[in-house]
């Protein structure tokens, strides 16, 4: 499905933004400014931008651990996300969460849970609430090919399919779970076959083609809003980096990365735009420049922001009980 001109340009800009966002995160992670483990989504932009673009602010989005891109596109000011990764008090979660726990309920970013497979059952609840409250909000959960190994995936899909809950399972098949190829961890030729075991509409699609991602996500959203139940999307993609920023990824065969880089979601989208004459090289350069301003601001804000106060560690453990510090 060909997108309208404005929309394709918009999601192209989204992808440029999150690509650049991650490149900067990688830099500041490698130079030690960003603490902890960082999982980069470079190479997976079309899947993140496409799914988020097909959803509303009021829909519930559950990013995975490789989710900075989706997180930024949910609508939180990139500044606040960057500051969170930098462990600053100005971060959207006050620096208490970091890369794996960036959430912002005001834009429907429900956050990730460091235990793989946990959000896959949590999303049952947000979807259930839509039915209970009789509104048409949809829940979309991102999970990786490796995470599909967790028992919670079964409990979730079984319940969602039985109760026809409005959930979109966005299975990001980026080929690997850390060092383990998906064909070594799962029996199916295509992982979407798993969803068919629940008689749930399941599709393997090109996760690097933003138009295909949006087309299938919109169809899934429509089914969900109509009360027809969940959909499984197996988004074929690839993470250019290793599992975490700094992982040499020695387990990847020669040339695999290069082959996937030819299928760069940004290149694919750019080619469509130029082919259709919807923008000139200069227009796209302009887009890139606009993005640079946002990124520069975000980095500056993150660098200049203060660290949290010690007392910030103690708040919101209980709704009604204060925790004493030292």
């Amino acid at each position: 499905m060909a997108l309208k001109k404005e929309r394709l340009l918009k999601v192209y800009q989204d992808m440029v933004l999150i690509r650049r966002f991650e490149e900067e995160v990688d830099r500041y992670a490698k130079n030690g400014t960003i603490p902890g483990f960082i999982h980069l989504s470079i190479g997976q932009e079309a899947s993140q931008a496409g799914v988020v673009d097909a959803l509303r602010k009021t829909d519930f989005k559950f990013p995975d651990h490789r989710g900075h891109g989706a997180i930024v596109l949910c609508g939180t000011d990139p500044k606040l996300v960057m500051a969170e990764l930098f462990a600053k008090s100005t971060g959207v979660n006050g620096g208490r969460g970091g890369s794996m726990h960036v959430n912002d309920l005001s834009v429907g970013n429900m956050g990730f849970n460091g235990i793989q497979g946990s959000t896959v059952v949590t999303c049952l609840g947000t979807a259930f609430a839509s039915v209970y409250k009789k509104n048409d909000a949809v829940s979309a959960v991102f999970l990786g090919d490796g995470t599909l190994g967790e028992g919670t995936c079964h409990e979730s899909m079984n319940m969602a399919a039985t109760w026809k809950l409005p959930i979109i399972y966005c299975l990001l098949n980026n080929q690997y779970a850390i060092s383990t190829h998906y064909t070594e961890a799962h029996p199916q030729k295509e992982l979407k076959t798993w969803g068919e075991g629940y008689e749930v509409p399941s599709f393997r699609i090109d996760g690097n083609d933003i138009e295909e991602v949006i087309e299938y996500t919109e169809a899934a959203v429509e089914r969900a809003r109509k009360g027809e139940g969940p959909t499984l999307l197996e988004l074929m993609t690839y993470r250019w980096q290793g599992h975490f920023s700094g992982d040499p990824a020695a387990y990847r065969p020669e040339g695999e990365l290069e082959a996937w880089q030819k299928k760069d979601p940004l290149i694919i989208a750019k080619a469509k735009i130029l082919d259709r004459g919807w923008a000139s090289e200069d227009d796209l350069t302009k887009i890139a420049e606009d993005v640079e301003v946002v990124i520069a601001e975000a980095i500056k804000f993150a660098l200049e922001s203060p660290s949290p106060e010690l007392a910030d560690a103690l708040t919101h453990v209980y709704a009604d009980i204060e925790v004493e510090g030292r």
Partner: protein
Amino acid sequence: MARKISFSKAINEALHQEMERDETVFILGEDVAKMGGDFGITMGIWSKWPDRAFDTALSESAILGLSCGASVCGLRPVAELMFADFIAVCFDQLVNNAAKLRYMYNGRAGAQMVVRAVTGGGIRCAYHHSACVEPWLMNVPGLVIVAPATPYEAKGLLVASIRNNNPVVFLEHKLLYNTKGEVPEEIYEIPLYKANVEEEGTDVTIVAAMTMLGMAKTAAQELAKAGISCEIVNPRTLFPLDKATIIKSVAKTGRLVIAQEGPKVMGYGAEVSAMLAEEIFEYLKAPVKRVTSIDVPMPFAPVLEDYVLPNPSLIVDAVKAVMAF
């Protein structure tokens, strides 16, 4: 004289009245809707509110995960897990999801849910249907563990638990279900995090919850004959513990016996004892004794289960020992 009903009926009534009062409250779990629960506790709810009572598959992680997500959307799930032992299969959802959700959302939302679980031994169902699970959960900040001992407490504490904005594990001891007691018909709350001094005394404090409370009272009568005056403290909420009430009592008596079901090592009695040794050591006149189950998986044969479980005469012996010290 006020109305007497059973512990089960008291819980059922609390659920009905809270469902009536607040339409964000709903129940879910295995066989809780149409059948009214494996133990009959949710009887009559589904017929009154068919859209607010849900029979689920055998998917405990999904039940708790759904409850977490629904909480974030402002609902108040009351999930039943049947036997508390089954918390083990959805343990992650309790300790890493429900318990940490409010912290993760910086207070903007949290897991305002109740997990009802049938706890303890006594019905000859062996080692997978007899667990006391509080020790699995008491090192996890964010959780609340409530443990009623009477029908009156069961109703008032459940109402308070449903209205509470933290994830509450509500322990229902299977041997208490058929016990009867006075319970007001109108809805009422018994505050969480507050222990109750059941009987005042001067010589020794006995801390006892759930079925152990009755055993402690039996023991206290026996000990009174021997001229020993026991003060009995019922924690009601096991976690977070009401330190102040326990400290006040032991500061007065100077002696403590903890009567607790479940293995001794790292039972909740360990925390009670350690807390006191840290806070009011100077008031302690004697060793702090723990009367508990024997540290083994629960065997099936009645003679063996009865041997493994604690009993009143063990409490009597322990109290006499600390008095004799």
